[in-house]
């Protein structure tokens, strides 16, 4: 793919949280990219680091405790991470000053980008809206920030956005608590879409909702995506949702990317034992076999990741070689990557 066709490019991103208990290695050396108009599904268990990735892209990591240790995030070719090193200690004032000046510069750039080029929808629609402001105003706000429009115009546009997501515009002057969960999520979508961004990062947009509502929301997301040609990074832990609307999918395990590929690659030709295990764990609607085949064991504690393959302890196809070092991400097919030494061999055979 040509460089300029990448809307978002993340390279070797490593993020740690430094807490009293220890260092949480939340995201480890992850690289991926999103092309315009594409829907990328990001799948992983709780604590895999999905939200952390999303926040890193938005520049909204809580600092402290989060620290971006290394990597690069480019939005339409613009580097968004500071290349100034962090200060070495308390008295390293010069370094501190340089770093914070650079961060302020980036923050200014980010302000232009957030909501305008990239929007983010947060995990829980119940808490994502400000309880004391009219829902309509919360949509109008983002329009006012990024577009040079009058108050009245912004309101009008916000009303239109409400209609667009299926809420009558005359409910503009209502508060979030007067809306049901599904309606709140629609408002969140309306906010995300209000300035026609190029990319929406949707962090588990439907996890908190009922299936019937989830179906409505997914349907709408897909329609709007088609209409505006917006790219979406859809974070979820439900392969059903991925199958529903994604173009491409990547699987995260313990802060690492273990497999990435098109839907066909993942759903029909998955190679990484973790991905395989996930699919086997799911009760199948069309198969009535009595026993499920769960992955044994648990995800390792992100504060104490092993130096070798982090899936080793749970792996069904492990071999001694796996313990030698971190597995390398290999391209098995064109666009289909997996980080498993065993799987890599198999991929090449196929």
């Amino acid at each position, binding site marked *: 793919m040509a460089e300029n066709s990448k809307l978002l490019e993340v390279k070797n991103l490593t993020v740690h949280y*430094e807490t009293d208990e220890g260092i949480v290695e939340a995201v480890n050396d992850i690289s991926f990219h999103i092309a315009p108009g594409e829907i990328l599904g990001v799948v992983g268990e709780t604590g895999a680091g999905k939200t952390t990735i999303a926040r890193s892209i938005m520049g909204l990591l809580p600092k402290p405790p989060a620290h971006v240790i290394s990597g690069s995030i480019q939005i339409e070719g613009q580097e968004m991470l500071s290349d100034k090193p962090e200060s070495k200690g308390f008295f390293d004032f010069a370094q501190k000053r340089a770093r914070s000046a650079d961060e302020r510069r980036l923050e200014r750039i980010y302000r232009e980008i957030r909501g305008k080029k990239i929007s983010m929808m947060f995990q829980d629609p119940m808490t994502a809206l400000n309880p004391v402001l009219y829902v309509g105003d919360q949509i109008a706000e983002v329009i006012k920030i990024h577009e040079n429009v009058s108050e009245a115009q912004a309101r009008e546009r916000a009303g239109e956005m409400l209609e667009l997501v299926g809420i009558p515009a005359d409910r503009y002057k209502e508060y979030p608590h007067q809306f049901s969960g599904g309606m709140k999520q629609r408002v969140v979508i309306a906010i995300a879409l209000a300035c026609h961004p190029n990319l929406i990062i949707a962090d588990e947009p439907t996890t908190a909702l009922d299936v019937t509502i989830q179906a409505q929301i997914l349907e709408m997301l897909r329609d709007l995506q088609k209409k505006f040609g917006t790219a979406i990074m859809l974070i979820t832990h439900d392969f059903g949702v991925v199958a529903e609307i994604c173009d491409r999918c990547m699987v995260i395990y313990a802060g690492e990317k273990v497999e990435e590929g098109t839907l066909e690659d993942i759903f029909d030709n998955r190679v990484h034992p973790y991905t395989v295990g996930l699919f086997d764990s799911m009760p199948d609607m069309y198969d009535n076999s009595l026993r499920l085949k769960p992955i044994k064991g648990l995800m390792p504690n992100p504060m104490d990741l092993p130096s070798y393959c982090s899936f080793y302890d749970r792996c069904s196809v492990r071999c001694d070689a796996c313990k030698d070092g971190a597995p390398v991400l290999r391209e098995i097919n064109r666009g289909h990557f997996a980080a498993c030494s065993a799987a890599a061999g198999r991929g090449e055979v196929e």
Partner: protein
Amino acid sequence: MSKITTPAMVKLNKKTKGRHKETGNTPMQEGLKRLRKNKTAMAGMIIILFLIIIAIFAPLIAPYGYQEQSYTEVRLGPSLQHLFGTDHLGRDIFSRCVYGTRYSLPIGLICTLLGLVIGGGLGLVAAYFGGRTDNIIMRIIDIIQAIPSILLCIALVAILGNGMWQLVVAITAGTIQGMTKNVRAAVFMVRNNEYVNSSKSIGVSDFQIMIRHLVPNAVGIIVINAVGVVATSILTISSLSYLGVGLVAPTPEWGAILAEGKQYMAVAPHMVYFPGLMIAITVVAFYLFGNGLRDALDPRLK
């Protein structure tokens, strides 16, 4: 961007990795551990411990008796002989302040404890049983709350007379309404937890649930509030002393020392600064400790 090393990473060498794996820590122990790491809380606690030690060993620490008068050295400024100077009767203010820890501190603690038992009990019952019980208790508390607590104290001292236990009763009465409300709120929060339902579904009795599940889990929030109450109680004691309804002379209660010294503010400011400072330090210590405790026990605020 190249890989960076943060100070925390430097500090945390690989050896310490995995230590979180140890098991068998109650949340209380974890909280205490965090508390131990919390600098402000530790500062507060050290001051409080220090004051307690002073209170216990007052006769050894104080260079003079708290009532010893020396009419040749009245209202002297601070010096090596008299660290905090002397008062209008030539008493050593340092010694008086040292002995003073034997009043404010224990009274504050005892009142808080009593308030905790009475108010806490009411709050617990109100929150657990809810409905009418809750209503009755809270209406009574509303009534008490409508009277400013210092007013309540003064009125009670007027009824009961001056003296140590009367003072304790009065201040305790002033703390009850706040305690009840706090404990009630804390228990309410805990009560809605699923584990209370879980125990109910097993058939554990109401009393057992209160004692085994609600109280231990609400204790953190309650203690945090109680620490604040100690601080306000100490202030109340000194205010009552000022109003002349506190402890009687020559009790070296800080508020009383302050009230005696206030006349000489212009010529002998040390007479008001030092006891004032003692009160402030003690109260600050309790606030620090309370804040730290909250940070340690309430992970949300980390």
